[in-house]
């Protein structure tokens, strides 16, 4: 894969001039399709994945693309919007309620100003609405706050919360004017990281309509008590939580619990006055508990562009078969082809649909379980991971099993979109360890293994010298692994079967495959395996996905590959990598930040902390050819129906 550098303004101008000359010379004219106002866009929800939570502050239970990116964000716009309907993974000032934040005092302070937007009830969106969110968030993520949830009503929370990170890395925050606020941070942070991964979590909420403890109670300032902050003991740098978070019936936590409880009453979504006060381009008009949602334009939407369609409907589907039937019947404006039906793409195109694969800003991988007492020591050896990665034939998987729709994964920073400036020359240059059977065999032989192609290779030269098997590997140890993967995907089954066959036939690496439902694979892989509490039930686990950088849009690995990170499935631990990650969080300027990011990703492209697999599209989208505004799809899986129009 080719690295595409950033285009400067002048280079861009030159390209534009040449293009204009070419068009003029050919006597051609560019035509923009004439669009009409009105019309209903019907969007297919994922199979058995209806939106089921409307409150934008979603706990881990409800923290999903379906509930946030594709549902509540259409009504509640984050303070800072990321993505721009042209597949660029960048901050979008135009669609944001806030202006670009200003960092000062060695990047330990942040000043934020808001544009003069209004809520759908005509009231202004102010700094108080941002503080309201921060108060609820602080209370809901406070580890010292009283437990609020129960088996019959789970409490509020925030799925993107990381212990010690936002908002616990904020010393104080306060509104300094109607449209301005100020934050003091507990350390100096890379401004881009702090904007992309921390401030990105803020969504202004209508304090003047939502600050209440019950549906019949008056609106007040119940959340305000959470603004005073105190330090968490034994933290360095000091982490902060609210002094008075409240409880289930008072204070900020009480308000959060009340709104959360309203969001748990699905049957009232379209009628509850709470949800009629919105900041986004759409407001909910109808909703059924099965997941049918009809949204109509918010007439008071302050952003631009404003919606021109008359309604945006999200239709639930019990299965991808049912969705595909709807697509063939032509009843959907935007749907998707199930991977197994990709051969019918041409038929749908003939019937008036346009095909457009929808890629996410993420990468696909599966983890090694480094804590496994027997196989962990083998997987800790870099030469073994290099050999194993060399047996993963990503180009073949993409062409044979994914119908050509996939991108080779070279490291932890997404290689799609192709012009992503965060991809280093090394990672953008292609796989560091491409498929090579001879290299895999050579690596094993060079490190004390007797390779038994077709059988099981054994360690015949134990020890820690450079030509020996490595620490913790005994004489006679076998390359024998268990790989659990998610059932239900033909493509994933094919990939795993091919890997199993190649590994054993070429290098004598025996892989015993087993399958389980997706959720059980996730449950197994993320079961808190650590070296102090190792898991011995699995060696590798593949749930058929990986990681999407949202709402932590800056593609560094603090949450997935750092030592002790909450989503570090196999407990990968490397001090150099930890230092590299920290450098991406604290870089002082753009140049230092890019350098730190390149260092981080180059290191992991070579270290192979996980098995890199082809990154597949989020979905294979099919949309009506007379629909405009969907030529590019949200790189963070977000929707832009305010851009849609019929020609």
């Amino acid at each position, binding site marked *: 894969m080719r690295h595409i550098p950033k285009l400067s303004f002048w280079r861009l101008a030159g390209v534009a001039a040449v293009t204009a000359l070419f068009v003029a010379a050919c006597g051609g004219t560019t035509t923009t399709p004439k669009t009409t106002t009105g019309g209903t866009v019907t969007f297919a929800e994922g199979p*058995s994945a209806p939106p*089921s939570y409307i409150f934008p502050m979603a706990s881990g239970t409800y923290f999903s693309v379906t509930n946030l990116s594709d549902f509540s964000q259409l009504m509640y716009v984050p303070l800072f919007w990321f993505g721009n309907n042209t597949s660029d993974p960048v901050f979008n000032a135009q669609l944001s309620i806030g202006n670009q934040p200003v960092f000062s005092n060695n990047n330990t302070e942040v000043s934020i100003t808001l544009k003069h937007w209004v809520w759908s009830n005509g009231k202004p969106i102010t700094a108080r609405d941002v503080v309201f969110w921060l108060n609820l968030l602080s209370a809901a993520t406070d580890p010292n706050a009283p*437990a609020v949830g*129960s*088996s019959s009503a789970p*409490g509020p929370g925030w799925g993107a919360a990381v212990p010690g990170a936002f908002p616990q890395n904020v010393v104080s925050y306060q509104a300094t004017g109607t449209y301005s606020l100020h934050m003091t941070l507990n350390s100096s942070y890379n401004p881009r990281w702090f904007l992309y991964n921390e401030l990105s979590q803020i969504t202004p909420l209508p304090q003047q309509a939502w600050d209440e403890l019950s549906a019949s109670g008056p609106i007040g300032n119940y959340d305000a008590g959470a603004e005073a902050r105190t330090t968490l003991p034994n933290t360095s740098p000091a982490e902060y939580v609210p002094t008075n978070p409240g409880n289930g019936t008072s204070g900020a936590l009480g308000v959060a619990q009340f709104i959360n409880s309203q969001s748990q009453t*699905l049957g009232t979504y379209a009628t509850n006055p709470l949800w009629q006060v919105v900041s986004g381009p759409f407001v909910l008009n109808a909703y059924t508990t099965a997941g049918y949602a009809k949204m109509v334009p918010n007439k008071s939407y302050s952003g631009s562009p404003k919606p021109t369609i008359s309604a945006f409907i999200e239709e639930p589907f019990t*299965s991808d078969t*049912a969705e595909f039937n709807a697509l063939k019947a032509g009843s959907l404006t935007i749907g998707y082809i199930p991977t197994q039906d990709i051969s019918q793409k041409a038929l749908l195109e003939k019937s008036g649909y346009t095909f457009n694969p929808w890629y996410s800003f993420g990468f696909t991988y599966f983890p090694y379980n480094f804590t496994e007492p027997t196989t962990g020591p083998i997987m800790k050896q870099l030469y073994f991971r290099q050999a194993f990665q060399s047996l993963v034939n990503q180009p073949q998987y993409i062409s044979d099993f994914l119908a050509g729709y996939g991108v080779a994964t070279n490291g932890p920073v997404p290689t799609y979109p192709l012009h992503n400036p965060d991809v280093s020359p090394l990672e953008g240059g292609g796989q560091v360890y491409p498929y090579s059977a001879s290299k895999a065999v050579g690596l094993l032989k060079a490190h004390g293994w007797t390779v038994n192609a077709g059988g099981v290779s054994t360690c015949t030269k134990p020890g820690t010298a450079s030509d020996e098997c490595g620490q913790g590997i005994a004489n006679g140890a076998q390359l024998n692994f268990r790989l659990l993967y998610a059932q239900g995907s033909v493509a994933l089954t094919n990939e795993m079967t091919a890997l199993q066959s190649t590994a054993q036939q070429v290098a004598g690496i025996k892989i015993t495959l087993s399958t389980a439902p997706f*959720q059980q694979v996730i449950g197994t892989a993320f079961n808190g395996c650590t070296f102090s509490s190792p898991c011995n039930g699995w060696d590798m686990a593949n749930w058929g996905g990986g990681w999407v950088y949202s709402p932590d849009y800056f593609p560094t690995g603090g949450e997935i590959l750092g030592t002790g990170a909450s989503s570090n499935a196999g407990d990968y631990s490397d001090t150099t990598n930890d230092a590299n990650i920290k450098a991406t969080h604290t870089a002082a300027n753009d140049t230092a930040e890019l350098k730190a990011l390149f260092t981080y990703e180059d290191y992991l492209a070579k270290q192979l902390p996980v098995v890199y697999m082809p990154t597949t599209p989020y979905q294979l989208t099919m949309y009506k050819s007379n629909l405009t505004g969907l030529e590019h799809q949200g790189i963070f899986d977000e929707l832009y129906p305010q851009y849609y129009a019929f020609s």
Partner: protein
Amino acid sequence: MIGYLIRRVGQAIVVLIGVTIITFILLHLLPGSPVRAILGPRASAAAIKQLNEELGFNKPLYVQYGIWVWNLVHLNLGFSYKLNQPVMALIGQRLPKTLFLVGSSLVLAVILAVPLGIWQAVRRNRPDDYVLTGMSFIFYSMPTFLLGILLIIVFNQTLNWLPFEAPQNQTYPWTDLNGMVLPVVTLTAVTVALFSRYMRSSMLEQSIQDYVRTARAKGVSNQAVLLVHVLRNALIPVITLIGLSIGGIVGGAVVTESVFNYPGMGLLYYNAAVTDDFPTLLGFVVVVALATVLGNLLADILYAVADPRIRYV
């Protein structure tokens, strides 16, 4: 009879308790944890610990079971974190839809299968019997999803007569019956094929019994022999089938629901199984087990109605 019923109800309660205990244990033997399934892969260890405590998953299994039974007695089946609704509400939404789909197809199937079975028995080994037998085998051996898709291709995509799915923006499907035609026909076709075969065999088996010969010897008309004597006894296997189908009526038809975009009980169960939605799974099992036990009890009672020789003591 009353003593028999009391004994059967007692047995039913024991069966239900056994089913819930086994299901409860099996669910807790699954790898991973319900809390991890609830909170997702991004959850921190602290968040998992906190929710484990909130939900009581850190308590011994027998204590958890006791709490669940206590809630069940108070008609509280728990809360589905995956679907953000109480399990009771979920079942309340899905059960009427499933009862309507599977129930109406069962009624239609009985209405069609009984006369068809009688006709085939009377016309045994004649061309029309062969044709009907052939059709029964075709429909019975055809996977439901294939029949459903074929019907969609013909009646929706080719002729454009009927919708390809059940109504989506209505709470109850009977408000738009057009959308129900294809799913009901799909299920009915398969069920008719099964019931009519049973009916035919049963009719043939009964028609060679001594009491039939006796009735004929006494000069009873052919029609009376068939409809009064043979039919009544031949219905017993069909009653058994209907009784066993009660659990199915409540449990739903996952494939048909999937093909026709019909969110019923079958899909509720399937999705709960693949997403580790334990409260929903347990609630579903209780309801279906209850329906199955009651269905069998009902069938036993109906035997006595159909055949006066059967007496329960």
